[in-house]
């Protein structure tokens, strides 16, 4: 439990600082530790994702001797509880209270938007290692806001072509009635209808209701050529199981990778044949990915997943920026820091990627399918896909 001991040390440091015994502002930025604030869910439904992202990021930093731009790193962890009501307050705590040099977070889109608002107001450097909300690299895009994961549109859009090429013409889409769900369905629908496909019905369930039986019955009566679903976590696990148990397996089930990632074991045979698109696949057969997965297993004791990759790449992005400015996080080198991060080519386990003008990854989207209980990579569904960044003025 490295986290606790670090946190303990940090606490002691904070206590000293609070009593005023320590110099409060370090005259020379390079000598003090870089403060990285990790605002992620460590309790509740997304706790597992928060932990994976944290481990990934720390592993990237540890691989560089535990340093960023030559400076030791201090992590300040904050449980955001996936509570958007407290998003801005928690982000402010890390920025104004803990004086972090970088803010990293989070999983939940609503919380991430609150963080983006605080970042926009304070100019703090923000790296989003998961939340796919389009606005963060759309209308809210800013020089100091980066994302190492995906936009909701991004992994879903290529599936539209896949569905069309596989001969599907009438498709039902289903998700929860909330931002991420509607954005992901929108991505698929755009890719599918622009080729002439027809969305028979878009089903949106109350969030986070997991009783799918009524809608599965409805799908059976609609008899579409395929179903595109966006669910994640426990909802994904249950939806895929219920879909199979309802005898709907004759209708191909598609989704973004979140439909199976991390829950494949729990889904068991029910997941057989499910087609997904994502910017990563556990089974990606590249030396980089294999090494990453082995290292991650050794580092954290757990299997790597897409969240670990996104956290790892967040750490890599930090390292590239910090190397460029030799660890100087003062305002004077901010422009150089951002410039270096903007042109970074990140050697990700998912395959190398660059960032768009809106600071969202321009990345390959893979087509994957579950076969014999394993996620198999069928190929690249869309090469170097960039989010259209609608509403972003700098893009």
């Amino acid at each position, binding site marked *: 439990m490295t986290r606790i001991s670090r946190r303990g040390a940090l606490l002691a440091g904070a206590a000293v600082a609070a009593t005023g015994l320590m110099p409060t502002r370090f005259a020379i930025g390079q000598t003090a530790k870089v403060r990285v604030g990790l605002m992620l869910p460590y309790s509740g439904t997304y706790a597992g994702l928060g932990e994976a992202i944290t481990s990934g990021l720390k592993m990237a930093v540890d691989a560089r001797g535990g340093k960023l731009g030559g400076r030791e790193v201090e992590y300040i962890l904050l449980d955001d509880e996936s509570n958007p009501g407290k998003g801005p307050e928690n982000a402010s705590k890390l920025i104004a209270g803990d004086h972090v040099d970088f803010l990293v977070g989070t999983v939940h889109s609503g919380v991430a938007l609150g963080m983006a608002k605080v970042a926009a107001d304070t100019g703090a450097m923000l790296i989003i290692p998961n939340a796919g909300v389009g606005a963060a690299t759309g209308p809210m895009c800013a020089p100091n806001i980066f994302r190492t994961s995906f936009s909701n549109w991004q992994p879903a859009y290529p599936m539209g072509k896949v569905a069309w090429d596989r001969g599907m013409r009438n498709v039902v889409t289903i998700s929860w009635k909330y931002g991420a769900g509607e954005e992901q369905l929108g991505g698929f629908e755009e890719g599918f209808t622009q080729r002439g496909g027809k969305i028979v019905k878009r089903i949106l*369930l109350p969030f986070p209701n997991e009783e799918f039986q009524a809608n599965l019955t409805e799908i059976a009566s609609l008899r579409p050529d395929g179903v595109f679903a966006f669910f994640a976590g426990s909802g994904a696990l*249950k939806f895929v*199981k219920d879909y199979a148990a309802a005898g*709907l397996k004759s209708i191909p089930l598609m989704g973004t990778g979140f439909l199976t990632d991390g*829950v494949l074991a729990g889904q068991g045979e029910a997941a057989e044949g499910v087609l997904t698109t994502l910017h990563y696949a556990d089974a990606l057969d590249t030396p980089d990915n294999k090494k990453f997965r082995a290292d991650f297993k050794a580092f954290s004791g757990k299997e790597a997943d897409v969240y670990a990759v996104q956290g790892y790449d967040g750490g890599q992005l930090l390292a590239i920026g910090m190397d460029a400015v030799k660890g100087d996080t003062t305002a004077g080198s901010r422009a150089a820091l951002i410039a270096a991060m903007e042109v970074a080519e990140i050697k990700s386990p998912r395959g190398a990627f660059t960032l768009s003008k809106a600071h969202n990854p321009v990345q390959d989207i893979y087509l994957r399918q579950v076969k014999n209980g394993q996620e198999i990579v069928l190929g690249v569904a869309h090469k170097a896909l960039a989010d259209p960044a609608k509403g972003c003025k700098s893009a």
Partner: protein
Amino acid sequence: MDIWFFLIQVMNGVQYGLLLFLVASGLTLIFGIMGIINLAHGSFYMLGAYLTFWLLQTVDSLFLAILLALPISAAVGYLIEALLVRVLYRRDHLDQVLLTYGLILIFNEAQRMLWGGDVHGIKVPGGLDWSIRLTETLSYPVYRIALSAVCAALAGGMYLVIQRTRFGMWIRAGASNRDMVAALGINVKLLFGAVFAVGAVLAALSGAIAAPINSIGPGMGDSILIICFVVVVIGGVGSIKGAFLGALLIGLADTFGKVLAPDFASFSVYGVMAVVLLVKPRGLFA
């Protein structure tokens, strides 16, 4: 929607309702007899599911795992009653709310420390892992039907216990007049301890038997809690019969809300509750 699909949707609603009844029954028992608003009820639901998942890694049969999970849940329930809840009987109801709120936090953290943040699923046991074909495209999983049967049987059993046994008489007495129970010379401490344990077991049992068709993950107890309160209150607090009908009503409202008025599906359950309580301010059977 043709008649066939309509009937299937009715079945969906009833099946969901029966499961809700089982979870909610413990809550209404505890409230009816002890007057305690037990917010930690969802935590017992989670406990049942996680214990089953955990035990299944050592024992091979789901039945056995559930059988082992129940006494553990009962013990946890009894201990909480004896050590904490008992202190508060003479206090305001809201003190108990606060206590059980604190318990939720502890249960959630304990879950995370013991079992981690991942989401799990367990397999439907062999023999029940097939489906009955209803239409060309739709099948109905046998496990769900078996689950409904178990829930219905338990509902019947509870009805008999409450109507026909001495324990049931105490429960009825307690629900209508709490002081009367003491006046009857019943060991109230023991009765309350037992009732709390039974409530915990009912919640854990529903978490356990639903586990094969659910996902087991952090926070699962919190999401079931509110819907249970809705069921209990619609039926009338303390009434098993009310909880039964309330659960069916909510199961059907949820199902048909999604199908007939998808834009307002979020409101259906709460809308039904609001309407019921505005017409009958003390629930259907209080």
